[in-house]
């Protein structure tokens, strides 16, 4: 018995009606999309400036060559990892309450993973030389591994979003009559002639299962390799063998928070209260506590081991974090963005939709600044002291174009998620029906 679904018995017609409701090009949505598009164009203008004048328009310099762009990249890769945790790990363990959330998690994964690749390009002074990475890349370089796994992860995530969507696309094709012609044609092509045959379901289940298994090592390696970009460099603060699991655990925190926020807005805007219930928020809140605890554990390790050994450079790094120049951001992120929120979520009232969503926003913001704390301070403390350079190279502050381009990446994610959520049902209709029929019997 799946108690996360609403207790009242829903008929198939009711379900179709409820879950297809979001597929329309209402004026509210058009306004929202126009707002996003205008914002994106403003950000693109700043990117045009960056292309014209080079990376000089950013706050990056010889020492801090990875600023908020790369922090943002790490954050995006991290957030996209949630697709793996929810649809694959929990899905394969037959945790049935996540079923209605699997598609939302997969949407988050696809949107963030796709844009993560673009962020790397914004950090390049000469994006026209991107092809050189493929032509002249060294197979020993973590950057080449990173590109390989990011591309693979995007491909698997798209397939994992698409294949379980087939029966729902067929429903869209059959039930939605008043959609634009091109949209109907798109459903017809994408539905792959879906008739709901047993053999078709069998094939779909087989392919999905292959992908669900395949995505686990790929998702783990995508973020492990991203951590290796740092950990395989001999720098204080990065030179750590636990960086792989540390990053992965942090990724689940950011991802859970992102899914909770997305859930909240889809539920509110598309009136999905019967499908995404308060119970779902409660369980997602508990999951968030679990992954946050694991992350806190890694954070303690990450600080206490070098702090105990006080090897010269690492001691300086830890000192900077705990009580030095970075301490305000550090404690804001650790206490405000991680520990206090997860302590709050321990209380049941805090796991109801609105408080949990607000706490998730705080956690997600903390997670973003946490990535800045990983990327930037280490670069400001090289083993050789920074000498005989302009004064402004000794610190780092992102400029307006840099912030705008970074904001642009978030806007792009919102656009991708909004458009996909307007084209396809965000809750798997066929799975809900299956569940209800199963419960009836």
């Amino acid at each position: 018995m799946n108690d996360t679904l609403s207790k009242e018995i829903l008929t198939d017609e009711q379900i179709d009606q409820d879950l297809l409701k979001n597929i329309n090009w209402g004026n509210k949505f058009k306004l929202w999309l126009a707002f996003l598009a205008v914002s994106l164009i403003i950000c693109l203008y700043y990117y045009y400036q960056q292309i014209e004048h080079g990376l000089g328009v950013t706050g990056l310099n010889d020492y801090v060559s990875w600023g908020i762009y790369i922090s943002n990249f790490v954050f995006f890769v991290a957030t996209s990892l949630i697709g793996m945790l929810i649809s694959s790990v929990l899905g394969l363990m037959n945790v049935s309450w996540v079923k209605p959330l699997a598609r939302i998690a997969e949407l988050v994964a696809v949107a963030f993973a796709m844009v993560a690749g673009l962020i790397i390009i914004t950090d390049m002074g000469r994006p026209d030389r991107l092809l050189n990475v493929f032509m002249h890349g060294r197979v020993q370089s973590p950057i080449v591994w990173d590109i390989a796994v990011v591309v693979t992860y995007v491909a698997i995530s798209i397939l994992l979003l698409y294949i379980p969507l087939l029966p729902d696309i067929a429903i869209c094709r059959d039930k939605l009559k008043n959609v634009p012609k091109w949209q109907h044609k798109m459903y017809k092509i994408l539905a792959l002639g879906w008739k709901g045959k047993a053999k078709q379901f069998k094939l779909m289940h087989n392919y999905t299962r292959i992908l669900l298994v395949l995505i686990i090592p790929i998702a783990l390696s995508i973020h492990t390799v991203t951590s290796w970009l740092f950990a395989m460099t001999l720098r204080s603060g990065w030179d750590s063998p636990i960086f792989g699991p540390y990053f992965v655990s942090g990724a689940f925190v950011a991802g859970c928070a992102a899914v909770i926020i997305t859930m909240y807005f889809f539920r509110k805007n598309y009136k999905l209260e019967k499908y995404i219930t308060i119970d779902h928020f409660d369980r997602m809140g508990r999951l968030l506590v679990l992954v946050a605890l694991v992350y806190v554990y890694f954070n303690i390790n990450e600080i206490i081991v070098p702090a105990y050994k006080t090897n010269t450079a690492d001691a300086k790094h830890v000192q900077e974090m705990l009580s030095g120049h970075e301490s305000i951001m550090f404690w804001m992120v650790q206490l405000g963005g991680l520990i206090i929120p997860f302590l709050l979520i321990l209380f049941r009232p805090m796991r109801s939709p609105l408080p949990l969503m607000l706490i998730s926003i705080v956690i997600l913001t903390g997670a973003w600044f946490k990535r800045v704390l990983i990327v930037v301070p280490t670069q400001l403390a090289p083993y050789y002291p920074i000498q005989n350079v302009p004064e402004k190279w000794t610190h780092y502050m992102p400029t307006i174009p840099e912030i705008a381009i970074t904001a642009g990446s978030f806007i792009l994610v919102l656009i991708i998620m909004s458009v996909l959520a307007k084209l396809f049902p965000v809750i798997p209709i066929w799975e809900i029906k299956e569940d209800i029929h199963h419960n009836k019997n």
Partner: protein
Amino acid sequence: MNYYKYYKSIILICLCFLAVANANAQSDWEIPEKEQENVSFIMFDDDMILEGSIAYENSCTSCHGTPGQDDYMPMAPSPGDLASDQFQEQKDGTIFYKIKKGRGSMPKFEDVFADDETWNIVAYIRSFNKNYKQPIPDLGGIIIPEYKLKLDFDENVDKLVVKVFSKEIPQAEVDVSAFVKGMFGKFLLGKTQTNELGIAYLDIDPQLPGDAEGKLHIMVKASKGYGLAKLNQKMKMVQPTIHKSAIEGRHIWSTDEMAPIWLKTSFFITIFGVWTILFFIVIGFYNIKKAGREDLH
């Protein structure tokens, strides 16, 4: 307050003294006429220049810098660049005398270098002067004996055997020195004299690194009075050296071509494997389509 005044006057006196000393130093360096006409009775050759360069780098570069580079120490009097015209105008004997005797901050090397070693340095300095013509020494009727050298290696006792002849007759009491030529200089194997059979033995350390065939580049010099002979020869004497790449085992940090096989194979097999599965699934879309059509007929 009084002390302060004292300091002032002391500094003033010191400055005056330095100025006078400087003026003194800059006055011409008088070299006795006879010494100026001194010349090397050995004609300069590449070997002398090589030896001279080693001695120069050890004892002279710190002040005079590398000849031709104008990188000498800023001192008073100026050491000057040894490749400059002003310096090269001097006679061989003058340079020889100056190295030997020294003056002021230029130390005397009389006790450091033997005469032939000092001439090596002169030969090295002259190698920077293309117009230099070595004066022919006047030997006053003395006939210089011509020596011939023959080298052999006795592997039973690890000794280099040097035989010195003059007109087929073995020569006794000839000074023999032997070196191994290295990349940047010479390694002295030893100095000895020939016995009454005209043979000199020199120890070879079997641990010396040879080339790929176990050969050493041996340089032997034999001299007695005005007579001098040299011989360079590569001889198989030691174990061959197998050259290993300096980054052996650290190919992970090298170029793409040097990437370790295990890394290449595991990387490409993984990527290829995963994408094959994805490709298989995309092909599978056709099966889904076909399955939908089957019951129509």
